[in-house]
């Protein structure tokens, strides 16, 4: 898979928040086999070491860094956050999140497109967190985005793909744009489903970090994403309304009570 001209072996992108411990975080990253991890920026208390201890830990994983603008509620905030992230993380990649509603954490399509336009013009490789709205998606592509990240369900809800038909239409409408399902994935089966539908990758965090055993769950997601992609490439059977015998009926024995006698 290529994202902004970068080849990636894994189609799983993993968030780094909410893990029980740094050790479990790094073990989960390794177990998942993911090639990209998301990070953010937060206020640093003078003289603190915590955050600056956290950063080298992630660098050591060798995974590519995708900073986010999580929590920003305006284009202005998101743009400034992106600029700060580019300097600290030394990457032009940015997961663009502009929240429009505090309850659903859904993106604000207007501010999102505005921020995307500014950031793309400024040389960022923008990964916009968006809805399944086709028109918003087109505006984001017009703004210069070369990857789209539609939500599966509200962030952290773990409800999987809420609007399968709309996401199917989106996949069909943008056959050649890398589409990454971001947010809402709660189980490996849901990640596999997204891949079977032809999405290019899956980005998740809570479902791994909040699992009983995050490392094992990370491994499970890695396997499920690979399985889903393999199935997509292998070509799934079309569902049928009626049943159809798997065992051939031809040559069935007649063991009833009929016969010549």
């Amino acid at each position, binding site marked *: 898979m290529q994202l902004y001209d970068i080849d990636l072996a894994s189609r799983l992108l993993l968030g*780094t928040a909410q893990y029980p411990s740094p050790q479990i975080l790094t073990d989960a990253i390794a177990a998942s086999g993911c090639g990209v991890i998301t990070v953010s920026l937060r*206020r640093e208390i003078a*003289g603190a070491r915590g*955050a600056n201890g*956290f950063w080298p830990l992630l660098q050591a994983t060798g995974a590519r860094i995708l900073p986010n603008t999580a929590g920003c509620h305006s284009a202005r905030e998101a743009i400034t956050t992106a600029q700060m992230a580019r300097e600290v993380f030394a990457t032009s990649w940015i997961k663009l999140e502009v929240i429009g509603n505090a309850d659903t954490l859904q993106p604000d399509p207007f501010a999102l497109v505005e921020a995307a336009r500014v950031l793309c013009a400024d040389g960022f490789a923008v990964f916009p967190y968006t809805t399944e709205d086709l028109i918003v998606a087109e505006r984001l592509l017009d703004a210069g985005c070369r990857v789209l990240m539609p939500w599966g369900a509200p962030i952290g809800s773990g409800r999987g793909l809420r609007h399968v038909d709309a996401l199917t239409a989106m996949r069909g409408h943008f056959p050649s744009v890398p589409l990454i399902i971001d947010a809402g994935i709660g189980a490996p089966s849901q990640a596999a489903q997204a891949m079977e539908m032809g999405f290019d990758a899956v980005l998740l965090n809570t479902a791994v970090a909040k699992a009983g055993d995050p490392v094992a769950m990370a491994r499970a997601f890695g396997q499920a994403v690979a399985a889903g992609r393999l199935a997509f490439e292998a070509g799934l059977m079309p569902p049928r309304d009626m049943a159809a015998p798997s065992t051939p009926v031809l040559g069935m024995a007649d063991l009833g009570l009929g016969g010549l006698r």
Partner: protein
Amino acid sequence: MRIDLNGAAIEVAARTLAEALSDLGYDGALATALNGRFVPATARTETPLHDGDRVEVLAPMQGG
């Protein structure tokens, strides 16, 4: 003078953003913003502080 640092009002003697950071003992991977605008590390020494300025000093954090 009084500035707002990461949301808290504090008294600083520093004249520039760079001075303020070192006076406050900041180092390591940091990004700075002044009154809502990004200030590159290279520009901090030339960035004067004024009373009431709003400074944000951010560091890498876990993120989803």
